[in-house]
């Protein structure tokens, strides 16, 4: 249970995924499961694809048609609760927020981690973007095997040992 462990259930996660056919393009997954007063995702989206409305406690809803998967919301969310996903053949390509050192580098292979903090697969680092607007939150493009699409959420560096 989210309230006891901090880990959302698979049902909760799936409720934020659009239909698979929409994922031929990258789309944002808004994992905000609680009413808290917050709306930078809505105000940062350049395509008006995230809707909260005047009561900022409302959980954000994605307009799947309008979302281009640009990733601006990923680095704007103060709770780091948004990722972008796209299905490409036998891979799922993600854009995730990352705020630790060392930063991953293009071409490296890191651990793919699920929401419980367990290693589930290898994650291929495709690109890493850092600019001033992101304010120290790096945007990392990473690919994992598509069967892990609903489990993968972040990366962890592989230890030399």
């Amino acid at each position: 249970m989210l309230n006891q462990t901090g880990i959302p259930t698979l049902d909760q996660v799936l409720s934020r995924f659009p239909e698979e056919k929409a994922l031929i393009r990258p789309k944002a997954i808004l994992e905000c499961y609680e009413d808290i007063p917050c709306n930078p995702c809505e105000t940062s989206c350049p395509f008006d694809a995230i809707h909260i409305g005047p009561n900022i406690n409302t959980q954000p809803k994605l307009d799947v048609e309008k979302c281009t998967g640009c990733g601006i919301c990923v680095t704007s969310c103060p709770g780091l609760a948004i990722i972008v996903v796209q299905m490409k053949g036998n891979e799922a390509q993600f854009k995730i927020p990352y705020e630790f050192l060392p930063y991953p580098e293009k071409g490296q292979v890191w651990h793919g981690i699920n929401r419980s903090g367990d290693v589930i697969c290898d994650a291929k680092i495709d690109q890493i973007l850092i600019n001033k607007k992101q304010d120290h939150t790096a945007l990392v493009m990473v690919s994992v095997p598509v069967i892990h699409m609903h489990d993968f959420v972040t990366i962890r560096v592989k230890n030399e040992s």
Partner: protein
Amino acid sequence: MRIESHPILDFPKKQEIFFMFEGRKVSGFQGDTIASALHALGIKTLSYSIHKKRPRGFYCAIGNCASCHMIVNGIPNIRTCITPLEPNMIVQRQENKGVIK
């Protein structure tokens, strides 16, 4: 135990400051408080309690709780967690309520 690199903050190298702790010459950096400089040196015990002489360190680090009292340049009850480190300070552990000379 200083932070070398950090994903959000920058910790530029600062001027080294030498001071005395319990008769030993030690150092911290410009911008340190006495307590942060001692902590960076691995010194966590700042004083001893009045009756049972139990070791004490700081707790709140912003000057509210009085756990961090030490004798600085002969003056007792100095809140070391909010007192900026200055060159040649003489810092000693306090074991009593403080004797003001």
